[in-house]
């Protein structure tokens, strides 16, 4: 059992297992969406609008008579893809910037530090709103906005990790054996810094889902008829007294998924035993 990788070990805990199970379920549903749903997400059936929860429509229908469960499943595709892609981009750029800052020190370090302090002077939602205003509405704009909003976090974390590792004996040893900068960075430093960064990336994905939903609420993000959780809540907010299910279910989907990400992340932190590493830079 000890040889299992940490992500699987985390599943063996009760909460970690439940949370991981939910995430797998959502991911599977999103991938298999066309095979799971009896309805199409974009075909309107206007006489069937505003139907409450029923056997035919498990979560009711929206203002166009479209099945909400179908749209929720397809919405998972959009919301998860956008958030995960944005965070992946953010992590990659953050690791490069953070590693460069820590390794080279001097002015690159100061420049990166000022830039990070700068982004931290604005709440994420503001960064995202302004970037979307520049790039234009649509999923690309939202992805870039989220990626930039979280860039500072990963840069800072990577930088701190590398700084600590830089002084460790095995790095000194590699250096004295004549290893080049690239070798040390990519073979020794980054792999050791990876676990905390990836876990914090996972937790950030939860925040990114909320941010994506909030941008969707402002009408930015996936364009109709493509559903996203935020877009569904935005449409649902105008129907809140008439068809409350249209806003309650997408909101629950976001809340449960983000909780699951947090709980699974916690389990993972416990398994990897990296709480201290994360705390130091929080």
């Amino acid at each position, binding site marked *: 059992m000890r040889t299992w990788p940490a992500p699987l070990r985390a599943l063996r805990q009760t909460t970690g297992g439940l949370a991981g199970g939910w995430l797998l379920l959502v991911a599977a549903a999103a991938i298999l969406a066309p095979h799971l749903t009896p309805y199409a997400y974009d075909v309107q059936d206007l006489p069937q609008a505003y139907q409450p929860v029923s056997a035919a429509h498990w979560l009711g229908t929206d203002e166009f008579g479209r099945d909400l469960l179908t749209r929720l499943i397809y919405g998972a595709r959009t919301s998860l893809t956008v958030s995960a892609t944005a965070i992946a981009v953010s992590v990659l750029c953050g690791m490069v910037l953070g590693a460069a800052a820590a390794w080279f020190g001097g002015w690159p370090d100061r420049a990166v530090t000022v830039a990070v302090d700068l982004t931290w*002077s604005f*709440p994420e939602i*503001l960064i995202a709103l302004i970037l979307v205003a520049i790039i234009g509405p649509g999923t690309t704009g939202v992805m870039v906005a989220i990626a930039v909003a979280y860039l500072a976090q990963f840069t800072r974390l990577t930088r701190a990790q590398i700084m600590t590792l830089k002084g460790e004996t095995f790095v000194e040893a590699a250096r004295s054996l004549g290893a080049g900068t690239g070798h040390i960075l990519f073979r020794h430093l980054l792999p050791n810094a990876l676990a905390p960064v990836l876990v914090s990336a996972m937790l950030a994905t939860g925040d990114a889902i909320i941010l994506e939903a909030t941008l969707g609420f402002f009408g930015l993000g996936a364009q109709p008829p493509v559903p996203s959780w935020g877009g569904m809540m935005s449409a649902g*907010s105008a129907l809140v007294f008439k068809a409350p299910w249209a806003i309650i279910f997408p*909101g629950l989907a*976001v809340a449960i998924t983000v909780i699951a990400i947090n709980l699974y992340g916690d389990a993972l932190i416990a398994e990897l035993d990296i709480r201290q590493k994360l705390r130091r830079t929080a």
Partner: protein
Amino acid sequence: MIAYLIRRILMLVPVFLAVSVVIFSILHFIPGDPIDNLLKIGSSPEARAEMEVRYGLDRPLPVQYGIWLSNVLRGDLGTAIVARRPVADLIAQALPHSLWLGGLALLFSTVAGVGLGVVAALNRDRWPDRAIMGGVLLGSTMPSFWLGLILMLVFSVWLGWLPVSGARSWTALVLPVLTIGLGGTALVARITRVSMIEASGRDFVTLLHAKGLSPLRIQLRHVLRHALIPVVTILALRIGWILGGAVTVEVVFARPGLGTLLIKSLSQHDYPVVQACLLMLAMAVMLGTLLGDILQAVMDPRVRAALA
């Protein structure tokens, strides 16, 4: 201590300058032009040029920046292009609403968060702990606009206890404060709980137990005091986060405030107003960070000793 304060405040200057450059320049990348909204349709290029001169938009960007910054430093925030009145007036109308909302939300998160965190820590790993931590986790994972709408649905529409929107009475503050505050509560409760548990394991606590003090008294009088240091620091750091939450919540509850002003001006490309709003928010974040550092210095005996 004084030297530390001065150094800490001086450190804000470069960040403030960088923030001001970013605020000033980024807006010019947004497509669309406020002048277009003012000009008569079919106006001549001359009329346009005249309007640009009037608002100083014809000069090179660095010059515009210099003028803007020196005006801001002298307390002159300029004139709104679309709203056609001093930006300072618009900010003065909006700021008190946002300060009340943010301040009360901060207060609520602190009181509720510390209270829940203490109860959870005292009942570590038993059901009250699990219930509280589960509850606050739920509170922190709901998008604030969604939570706001649900609260509005329940308390204003179904129960009819509180106003739906606006800022015409004190009661209209309750739901927005709750909406923002619940997210903050989760954070504070988690940190309080963790630092209480950590502090309980410290040597001085063992000593106090040995002296025969009652366990509850030790927890509330001594452990909590230590545990509050990280809470205060994190809260100060999180001022920006609370203001960010206020932007969406103000829109949901159709409340006046910096958030609604910012969103409106952003969509109208009213640069001077957007710049002023962003500057206000960024300054609040910077001051929050400063406050957090100072409070930490004052409260943590080790830091205090190092500075003395």
